[in-house]
């Protein structure tokens, strides 16, 4: 039995505690916005927040998760977009879109720690998130724009 809090909701899941969080989210809780890309924490498609920190859910045993989990579905939704999601739409970032939930969750973690990252800090934070469509340029632009929006909103 696993007890997890995901997007503010408590769940009890009947699954092996060794099972990576990714598959609990996707196959047991039906939260399919978090994607499988590699299974070895090498591409970032499965990135979620655990206790506010970006983690690769494909290698994190669900039994080790103590803090609250936030997935892309909890980060924002089509009716209530987050600043990052709005910037992603404004700057037309996504192509195939498969890596983008992971990119956005990684960026959310970055901006929570560092509200005004330099380009180099953005590059360092995002280098674990692979995009085979090569959308990096627009990802960077959208992060800068969202950071600006979020700083303004705080003033």
């Amino acid at each position: 039995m696993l007890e997890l809090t995901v997007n503010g909701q408590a769940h009890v899941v009947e699954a092996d505690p060794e099972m990576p969080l990714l598959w609990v989210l996707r196959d047991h809780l039906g939260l399919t916005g978090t994607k499988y890309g590699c299974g070895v924490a090498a591409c970032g498609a499965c990135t979620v927040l655990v206790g506010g920190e970006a983690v690769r859910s494909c290698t994190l045993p669900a039994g080790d998760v103590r803090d609250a989990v936030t997935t892309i579905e909890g980060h924002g939704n089509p009716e209530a977009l987050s600043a990052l999601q709005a910037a992603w739409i404004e700057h037309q970032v996504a192509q195939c879109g498969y890596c983008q939930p992971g990119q956005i969750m990684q960026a959310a973690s970055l901006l929570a720690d560092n509200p005004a990252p330099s380009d180099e800090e953005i590059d360092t934070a995002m280098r674990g998130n692979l995009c085979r469509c090569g959308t990096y340029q627009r990802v960077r632009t959208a992060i800068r724009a969202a950071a600006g929006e979020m700083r303004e909103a705080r003033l």
Partner: protein
Amino acid sequence: MSRLGRIARRTFLVGSVAIAGGVAFGIWQARRPVANPLRPADGEVTLNPYVLIDASGVTVIAPRAEMGQGIHSTLAALVAEEMDLDWPAVRVLHGPPARAYFNGALLGPGVPVNAERGVLHDTRQAAADLAPRALGLQITGGSTSLVDAFDKMRRAGAAARETLMAAAAARAGVDIARLRTEGGAVVTPEGLRLRYEDLAQDAAAIEPPRAPRLKPPSEWRLLGRSLPRTDIPSKVTGTAQFAGDVRLPDMLYATVRLSPRLGAAMRSIDMAEALAVPGVERIVEFEDGFGVIARDTWTAMRAADLVRAEWDRAPYPPQTDAIFERIALAFDSRPNSRLRNDGDAAARLTAAPPGRVFEAEYRVPYLAHSTMEPMSATAVLRDNHLEMWAGNQIPIAFRDAAARAIGLSSGDVTLHTTVMGGGFGRRAEVDVAVQAARLAASVPGRPVCMTWTREEDMTHDFYRPGAIARARAVVGPDGPEAVVLRIAAPSVSRQGARRLMGFAPPGPDHMLVEGAHDQPYRIPDFLVSGHIADVAVPVGYWRSVGYSHNGFFHECLMDELAREAGLDPVEMRLRLIDDAPSRGVIEAVADMSGWGADRPSGTGRGFAFTRSFGAPMAQVVELAETGAGLRITRAWAAVDVGLAIDPGNVEAQVISGMIYGLSAAVMGEITFADGMVEQHNFPDYDALRMDNAPEIAVRILETMPELAGIGEPGTPPAMPALANALYDLTGERVRELPLNRRFAFA
């Protein structure tokens, strides 16, 4: 030959004959109305294969694979423009597999951007439409989607609009000439708005016009502008449904393992240990592997690791070196093609003094597509009807393969083509359809969501083939005077045709030499020959296909010959190329990059030009020496697409194609040992990341008389431009990819 193969062959021959001689037949065939495959539900009305209207508005059918290239939005805009729809209200669906959605541009010429089309063009287009239509080729590939749809879908929108106006005229008792359309409604002179939703039933009963009036470009509101893509909101909120995201009651999850030696049979299997894993439902044997079905994906993947199987030997040389020896052997065979044979290059080279003949050999490796989303599909068999969700670039063949795999007829299969997490040509194969169908058939009534592991995906691709080029040339003061360029590689088009139709048409293999024989260079004595290598490693369509290796060969060679002649590489191109749009992009990229100016110290720059899929593209790549290794810092691209229907998306595709090519050039390589692929996951087969991808600037020109697609042309010139930059920076000429074999990249 199988029954299907025989039928396909007969159909194909009819098509070939008609293309060769039957223009009149071609016109008849192309003008024959296509059956509308849409089966509207209650409350829905369809006016033609592209337009579906229900109480909440208009849905446009965009029958091409959305794999990231933004084609759904661009195709929908063609219809929305002519129907005067509000862009934010437009909904887009892929629609069913259907012959109505054949891709006529696969074999055809480009489409003139001028809306006024002559008879000559009509007949050429009609003839070109014929073979894909006869074969029912609903294919996304070859950068053809927009070229194919530009007229068809605008006409569909315009025809729908005219029938809606006729319905409104009848209802309001107003002369149709006094009506106009706006925002998804017909508007009367008094300002009364009749919504399309309310007119659709009446409109469906009206015979659509055969030659609807198309808007001249001066009236366009949507086309020619960067529109927000319709798919992005769902993709940034995690609500877009990829094939592996389908969730249904009583669902099971599966993964497959195929022979690690590609195409080799499974000799034995011991599944006892795997079956003992709690949650494992069933293991299904294939000829060349097995699938594990379990209560979740992780259990299936873990159990698959516990299956012990023995595999036959590979049907190809087991080591990379031996594979390349086999490829090189093809140079000793009669060429399959001499599609460029100007003057008498062989004689010129024979007559040249030995010291004056330039010689070089270039090599490129096998490459994986490595889509972000590994292969996946979801399927359920209920009452002998298979329902499948899968990302794919060839819906008819995909559906038929699924049906055949479990003894159903095509009519017993419903295929939903989902958005896909990258395609790049990998999803133009039907292997996944067969597996998903067989897994679903083993547990009737229960949906099965199949996900390949990344390792399975990396080691069971239809790879971009390894290829070798041998060049000999004589150079004069203006550059090359005589060139013999010979190319040897396994044939993608023959393997692909065999998989799709059961036979490979004879004749010259254009894909083998595209990017080498068809470039607009004027070289007095110029021979390009293609030599087909006999290697059974599965090869397939990798973004830009033959251009992906020949662009590298040709443009590295041109760079070398420029240096031999003591000419600037850009200057030499301008001396050899007369084609105005090609010169235009070369001059534009030189201007953008400040080509002639002094380089910052510690940097090198390379230039390359490739005209592919109708689009001339010139690129400059800048490479810098950092303490930690070489870094691609900046890149510039200029491309002529005739008409940029969505400039923002054209820019995105050019950059995407370049990053794809640069990633391969720096580090992409599939190798073999004991018949098995040695790269398993991203740590072994990586790509550029945010911190080492260059900042890229794109300039779009629109001078060409014909439209060009843009999904692929960004890729070919990126690789030689980088290799040429490496020479500029280091003075070392590297004629083999990937470059990180010889140089460290940061």
